[in-house]
């Protein structure tokens, strides 16, 4: 299990392969990669700054991974989230899960990214033609999280 918060770019393919390497009990690996888009909410996006809460970020991601590990029989989990300056087309986040069978890997990776979007302390500030702007949380993210029935979720 690895949790990494870093400014540097990463290679999603290499991370995906590492989830299987030398673990012959792994029958399934599922990876999710989130990218910076060049368009959002009616504006062209020239890049973004990702702010976070050092210290809390790592703890929040660990809670998410621990919760996934209690719900599904997982062999390994890797979560990597970038911070700082990002350009359109660059990967922002990687969530990778390995397990013996596909259902656990699919469900756990979906759970982790939904949970991360509503509970991990990251904030995006986009550079647009109209100037920089903080990205607003989407109500849909909360709805997607709610389906996982997390105990202690704020109302």
């Amino acid at each position, binding site marked *: 299990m690895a949790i990494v918060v870093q400014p540097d770019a990463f290679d999603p393919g290499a991370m995906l392969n590492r989830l299987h390497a030398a673990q012959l009990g792994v029958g399934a690996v599922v990876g999710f990669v989130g990218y910076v888009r060049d368009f959002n909410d009616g504006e062209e996006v020239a890049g973004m700054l990702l702010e976070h809460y050092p210290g809390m970020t790592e*703890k929040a991601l660990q809670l998410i991974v621990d919760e996934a590990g209690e719900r599904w029989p997982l062999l390994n989990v890797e979560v990597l989230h970038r911070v700082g300056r990002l350009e359109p087309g660059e990967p*922002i986040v990687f969530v990778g899960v390995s397990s013996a069978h596909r259902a656990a890997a699919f469900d756990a990776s979906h759970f982790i990214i939904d949970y*991360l979007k509503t509970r*991990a302390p990251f904030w995006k500030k986009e550079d647009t033609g109209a100037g920089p702007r903080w990205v607003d949380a989407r109500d849909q993210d909360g709805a997607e999280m709610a389906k996982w029935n997390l105990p202690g979720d704020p109302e």
Partner: protein
Amino acid sequence: MITLQLFARYRELLDTDHEQIPWDAGLQCVGDLRDRLLARGNAWEVLAEPRVMCARNQEMCSLEAPLTDGDEIAFFPPVTGG
């Protein structure tokens, strides 16, 4: 002493990322601290936003969470990572 931390839009609006606030018996929960900050008026009223999020000692919490001397309390807008 309470260590207040502010992030993202709130940090910019209030032009500060942290502040030490003396603890006193009137600060029983995180909501009491928010009320104290709201009473400063002007830009601090942003903390009245219904979707304000808070954390106590780096874990998400509610405004009802108890507050004790030495706590680190953060206020921030809804998170937008991923």
